[in-house]
Protein backbone atom coordinates (compact mmCIF):
# COMPACT_ATOMS: atom_id res chain seq x y z
CA UNK A 1 0.00 0.00 0.00
CA UNK A 2 1.40 3.40 -0.96
CA UNK A 3 1.99 6.04 1.68
CA UNK A 4 -1.42 7.62 2.29
CA UNK A 5 -1.83 11.27 1.36
CA UNK A 6 -2.77 13.47 4.27
CA UNK A 7 -6.44 14.32 4.24
CA UNK A 8 -7.40 17.89 5.19
CA UNK A 9 -8.57 16.75 8.59
CA UNK A 10 -5.04 15.67 9.59
CA UNK A 11 -3.30 18.94 8.72
CA UNK A 12 -1.57 20.69 11.59
CA UNK A 13 -3.01 24.19 11.94
CA UNK A 14 0.15 25.43 13.62
CA UNK A 15 2.33 24.57 10.64
CA UNK A 16 0.20 26.23 8.02
CA UNK A 17 -0.44 29.29 10.17
CA UNK A 18 -3.82 29.78 8.56
CA UNK A 19 -7.22 29.33 10.09
CA UNK A 20 -8.10 25.83 9.04
CA UNK A 21 -11.10 25.41 6.78
CA UNK A 22 -12.06 22.36 8.80
CA UNK A 23 -14.28 23.57 11.64
CA UNK A 24 -13.17 20.77 13.92
CA UNK A 25 -9.44 21.53 13.72
CA UNK A 26 -7.83 23.13 16.74
CA UNK A 27 -5.32 25.98 16.67
CA UNK A 28 -4.51 26.15 20.35
CA UNK A 29 -2.24 23.40 21.69
CA UNK A 30 -4.25 20.95 23.79
CA UNK A 31 -1.30 20.17 26.04
CA UNK A 32 -1.06 23.76 27.20
CA UNK A 33 -4.82 23.97 27.75
CA UNK A 34 -4.64 20.72 29.69
CA UNK A 35 -1.95 22.19 31.96
CA UNK A 36 -4.14 25.17 32.72
CA UNK A 37 -7.12 22.92 33.41
CA UNK A 38 -5.07 20.77 35.77
CA UNK A 39 -4.02 23.81 37.77
CA UNK A 40 -7.64 23.93 38.94
CA UNK A 41 -7.94 22.26 42.32
CA UNK A 42 -9.90 19.01 42.35
CA UNK A 43 -9.47 18.41 38.64
CA UNK A 44 -7.97 14.96 38.21
CA UNK A 45 -8.24 13.40 34.80
CA UNK A 46 -9.30 15.39 31.77
CA UNK A 47 -11.18 13.27 29.25
CA UNK A 48 -10.22 13.87 25.65
CA UNK A 49 -13.67 15.13 24.67
CA UNK A 50 -13.76 17.78 27.38
CA UNK A 51 -10.22 18.87 26.53
CA UNK A 52 -11.25 19.24 22.90
CA UNK A 53 -14.36 21.23 23.84
CA UNK A 54 -12.63 23.60 26.23
CA UNK A 55 -9.83 24.22 23.73
CA UNK A 56 -12.30 24.90 20.96
CA UNK A 57 -14.47 27.04 23.22
CA UNK A 58 -11.42 29.12 24.14
CA UNK A 59 -10.71 29.73 20.45
CA UNK A 60 -14.31 30.85 19.98
CA UNK A 61 -13.94 33.03 23.05
CA UNK A 62 -10.84 34.77 21.69
CA UNK A 63 -12.72 35.43 18.46
CA UNK A 64 -15.75 36.70 20.37
CA UNK A 65 -13.74 39.03 22.62
CA UNK A 66 -11.79 40.41 19.66
CA UNK A 67 -14.92 41.06 17.66
CA UNK A 68 -16.81 42.68 20.53
CA UNK A 69 -13.91 44.93 21.50
CA UNK A 70 -13.31 46.04 17.94
CA UNK A 71 -16.97 46.66 17.15
CA UNK A 72 -17.30 49.30 19.84
CA UNK A 73 -13.89 50.90 19.32
CA UNK A 74 -13.92 54.55 18.31
CA UNK A 75 -10.84 54.07 16.13
CA UNK A 76 -11.47 50.92 14.13
CA UNK A 77 -8.13 51.02 12.38
CA UNK A 78 -6.58 49.56 15.50
CA UNK A 79 -7.42 47.39 18.48
CA UNK A 80 -6.22 48.87 21.75
CA UNK A 81 -6.11 47.79 25.38
CA UNK A 82 -8.84 50.28 26.30
CA UNK A 83 -11.20 48.69 23.78
CA UNK A 84 -10.82 45.42 25.66
CA UNK A 85 -11.26 47.07 29.06
CA UNK A 86 -14.38 48.91 27.89
CA UNK A 87 -16.11 45.84 26.53
CA UNK A 88 -15.24 43.76 29.58
CA UNK A 89 -16.74 46.39 31.84
CA UNK A 90 -19.87 46.86 29.79
CA UNK A 91 -20.96 43.26 29.12
CA UNK A 92 -22.39 41.40 32.10
CA UNK A 93 -21.17 37.92 31.25
CA UNK A 94 -17.60 39.24 30.92
CA UNK A 95 -17.61 40.27 34.55
CA UNK A 96 -15.16 37.47 35.38
CA UNK A 97 -12.53 39.38 33.39
CA UNK A 98 -12.80 42.72 35.16
CA UNK A 99 -9.84 42.09 37.43
CA UNK A 100 -7.76 40.63 34.61
CA UNK A 101 -8.41 43.58 32.28
CA UNK A 102 -8.92 46.55 34.57
CA UNK A 103 -9.91 49.91 33.21
CA UNK A 104 -7.11 52.40 33.21
CA UNK A 105 -7.36 55.94 34.32
CA UNK A 106 -4.75 58.66 34.08
CA UNK A 107 -3.03 59.97 37.17
CA UNK A 108 -4.92 63.27 36.70
CA UNK A 109 -8.24 61.43 36.71
CA UNK A 110 -7.20 59.47 39.80
CA UNK A 111 -6.29 62.70 41.58
CA UNK A 112 -9.65 64.20 40.66
CA UNK A 113 -11.42 61.15 42.05
CA UNK A 114 -9.45 61.42 45.27
CA UNK A 115 -10.33 65.13 45.60
CA UNK A 116 -14.00 64.35 45.11
CA UNK A 117 -13.76 61.65 47.74
CA UNK A 118 -12.11 64.06 50.19
CA UNK A 119 -14.73 66.73 49.52
CA UNK A 120 -17.49 64.26 50.23
CA UNK A 121 -16.20 63.57 53.71
CA UNK A 122 -15.03 67.09 54.52
CA UNK A 123 -17.23 67.49 57.53
CA UNK A 124 -16.07 64.20 59.06
CA UNK A 125 -12.36 64.92 59.50
Amino acid at each position, binding site marked *: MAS*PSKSPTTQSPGKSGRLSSQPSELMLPTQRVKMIMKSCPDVE*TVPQESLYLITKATELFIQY*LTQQAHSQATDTSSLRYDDLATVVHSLDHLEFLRETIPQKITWAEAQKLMEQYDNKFEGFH
Partner: protein
Amino acid sequence: MAERPEDLNLPNAVITRIIKDMLPEGVAVAKEARSAIARAASVFVLFATSSANNLAQKHKKKTVSAQDTFLALKEMEFDKFIEPLQESLEVYKRSQQNKKEQKEAKAKAKKAEEADKNSGSVEDNSEDGDVSNTMEASLTTDKENDDVMEIAE
Protein backbone atom coordinates in the same frame (compact mmCIF):
# COMPACT_ATOMS: atom_id res chain seq x y z
CA MET B 1 0.06 22.39 39.55
CA ALA B 2 2.03 24.66 37.20
CA GLU B 3 5.67 25.08 38.03
CA ARG B 4 6.32 28.32 36.18
CA PRO B 5 4.09 31.29 35.36
CA GLU B 6 4.48 30.76 31.62
CA ASP B 7 2.91 27.33 31.92
CA LEU B 8 -0.48 28.96 32.26
CA ASN B 9 -0.03 31.07 29.15
CA LEU B 10 -1.22 30.15 25.71
CA PRO B 11 1.20 30.66 22.81
CA ASN B 12 1.22 34.26 21.57
CA ALA B 13 1.67 33.30 17.94
CA VAL B 14 -1.56 31.31 17.85
CA ILE B 15 -3.53 33.93 19.75
CA THR B 16 -2.29 36.65 17.40
CA ARG B 17 -3.33 34.49 14.45
CA ILE B 18 -6.85 34.02 15.80
CA ILE B 19 -7.20 37.75 16.54
CA LYS B 20 -5.94 38.81 13.13
CA ASP B 21 -8.24 36.40 11.32
CA MET B 22 -11.21 37.96 13.10
CA LEU B 23 -10.34 41.52 12.14
CA PRO B 24 -10.38 43.25 8.73
CA GLU B 25 -7.00 43.44 7.04
CA GLY B 26 -4.74 46.23 8.13
CA VAL B 27 -6.12 46.64 11.64
CA ALA B 28 -3.19 47.18 14.00
CA VAL B 29 -3.39 45.13 17.18
CA ALA B 30 -1.64 46.83 20.09
CA LYS B 31 0.73 44.57 22.03
CA GLU B 32 -1.12 45.41 25.23
CA ALA B 33 -4.41 44.43 23.63
CA ARG B 34 -2.98 41.13 22.47
CA SER B 35 -1.58 40.29 25.87
CA ALA B 36 -4.88 41.25 27.54
CA ILE B 37 -6.71 38.86 25.24
CA ALA B 38 -4.14 36.14 25.97
CA ARG B 39 -4.63 36.57 29.73
CA ALA B 40 -8.40 36.59 29.25
CA ALA B 41 -8.19 33.33 27.33
CA SER B 42 -6.27 31.63 30.15
CA VAL B 43 -8.78 32.93 32.68
CA PHE B 44 -11.58 31.65 30.47
CA VAL B 45 -10.06 28.16 30.52
CA LEU B 46 -9.83 28.29 34.31
CA PHE B 47 -13.35 29.61 34.74
CA ALA B 48 -14.91 27.14 32.30
CA THR B 49 -12.97 24.24 33.83
CA SER B 50 -13.88 25.07 37.39
CA SER B 51 -17.53 25.61 36.48
CA ALA B 52 -17.67 22.30 34.62
CA ASN B 53 -15.82 20.56 37.44
CA ASN B 54 -18.28 21.90 40.02
CA LEU B 55 -21.14 20.53 37.95
CA ALA B 56 -19.44 17.14 37.70
CA GLN B 57 -18.88 17.02 41.46
CA LYS B 58 -22.53 17.88 42.05
CA HIS B 59 -23.40 14.65 40.26
CA LYS B 60 -20.74 12.82 42.28
CA LYS B 61 -18.60 12.25 39.18
CA LYS B 62 -14.80 12.34 39.19
CA THR B 63 -14.21 13.47 35.64
CA VAL B 64 -15.49 16.42 33.67
CA SER B 65 -17.73 15.17 30.89
CA ALA B 66 -18.64 16.88 27.62
CA GLN B 67 -22.11 17.33 29.09
CA ASP B 68 -20.70 19.19 32.11
CA THR B 69 -18.70 21.40 29.79
CA PHE B 70 -21.76 22.38 27.77
CA LEU B 71 -23.75 23.10 30.90
CA ALA B 72 -20.92 25.20 32.30
CA LEU B 73 -20.80 27.29 29.13
CA LYS B 74 -24.54 27.80 29.42
CA GLU B 75 -24.12 28.95 33.02
CA MET B 76 -21.40 31.36 31.95
CA GLU B 77 -23.85 32.75 29.40
CA PHE B 78 -21.88 31.57 26.41
CA ASP B 79 -24.88 29.76 24.93
CA LYS B 80 -23.95 30.95 21.48
CA PHE B 81 -20.88 28.71 21.56
CA ILE B 82 -22.84 25.55 22.23
CA GLU B 83 -24.18 24.80 18.78
CA PRO B 84 -20.92 25.40 16.86
CA LEU B 85 -19.10 23.36 19.51
CA GLN B 86 -21.50 20.46 19.15
CA GLU B 87 -21.00 20.47 15.39
CA SER B 88 -17.24 20.65 15.72
CA LEU B 89 -17.27 17.84 18.23
CA GLU B 90 -19.21 15.62 15.84
CA VAL B 91 -16.74 16.25 13.02
CA TYR B 92 -13.84 15.70 15.40
CA LYS B 93 -15.22 12.41 16.70
CA ARG B 94 -15.77 11.17 13.17
CA SER B 95 -12.26 12.09 12.09
CA GLN B 96 -10.82 10.39 15.18
CA GLN B 97 -12.84 7.30 14.34
CA ASN B 98 -11.54 7.37 10.76
CA LYS B 99 -7.96 7.69 11.95
CA LYS B 100 -8.48 4.79 14.29
CA GLU B 101 -9.91 2.63 11.53
CA GLN B 102 -7.12 3.63 9.15
CA LYS B 103 -4.55 2.76 11.74
CA GLU B 104 -6.14 -0.60 12.44
CA ALA B 105 -6.39 -1.36 8.73
CA LYS B 106 -2.74 -0.48 8.22
CA ALA B 107 -1.65 -2.54 11.17
CA LYS B 108 -3.55 -5.46 9.73
CA ALA B 109 -2.00 -4.97 6.30
CA LYS B 110 1.44 -4.60 7.78
CA LYS B 111 1.05 -7.80 9.73
CA ALA B 112 -0.07 -9.64 6.64
CA GLU B 113 2.84 -8.24 4.66
CA GLU B 114 5.35 -9.23 7.29
CA ALA B 115 3.90 -12.63 7.52
CA ASP B 116 4.22 -13.03 3.74
CA LYS B 117 7.57 -11.51 2.93
CA ASN B 118 9.26 -11.15 6.30
CA SER B 119 11.14 -8.15 4.92
CA GLY B 120 9.66 -5.35 7.00
CA SER B 121 7.27 -2.62 5.94
CA VAL B 122 8.40 -0.04 3.36
CA GLU B 123 5.98 2.51 4.71
CA ASP B 124 7.07 5.37 6.91
CA ASN B 125 4.54 5.32 9.69
CA SER B 126 6.15 7.92 11.92
CA GLU B 127 3.75 10.77 11.10
CA ASP B 128 0.71 8.57 11.27
CA GLY B 129 2.00 7.21 14.54
CA ASP B 130 2.04 10.70 15.99
CA VAL B 131 -1.38 11.52 14.60
CA SER B 132 -2.83 8.33 16.01
CA ASN B 133 -1.27 9.10 19.38
CA THR B 134 -3.36 12.22 19.56
CA MET B 135 -6.51 10.17 19.49
CA GLU B 136 -5.54 8.06 22.46
CA ALA B 137 -6.90 9.24 25.76
CA SER B 138 -3.54 10.30 27.20
CA LEU B 139 -2.75 13.09 24.68
CA THR B 140 0.80 13.08 25.97
CA THR B 141 2.79 13.08 22.74
CA ASP B 142 1.15 15.54 20.45
CA LYS B 143 3.64 16.42 17.74
CA GLU B 144 1.45 19.27 16.52
CA ASN B 145 1.71 20.95 19.90
CA ASP B 146 5.50 20.80 19.78
CA ASP B 147 5.47 22.49 16.41
CA VAL B 148 3.20 25.26 17.58
CA MET B 149 5.31 25.85 20.65
CA GLU B 150 8.45 26.10 18.56
CA ILE B 151 6.91 28.83 16.47
CA ALA B 152 5.82 30.68 19.57
CA GLU B 153 9.13 30.46 21.43
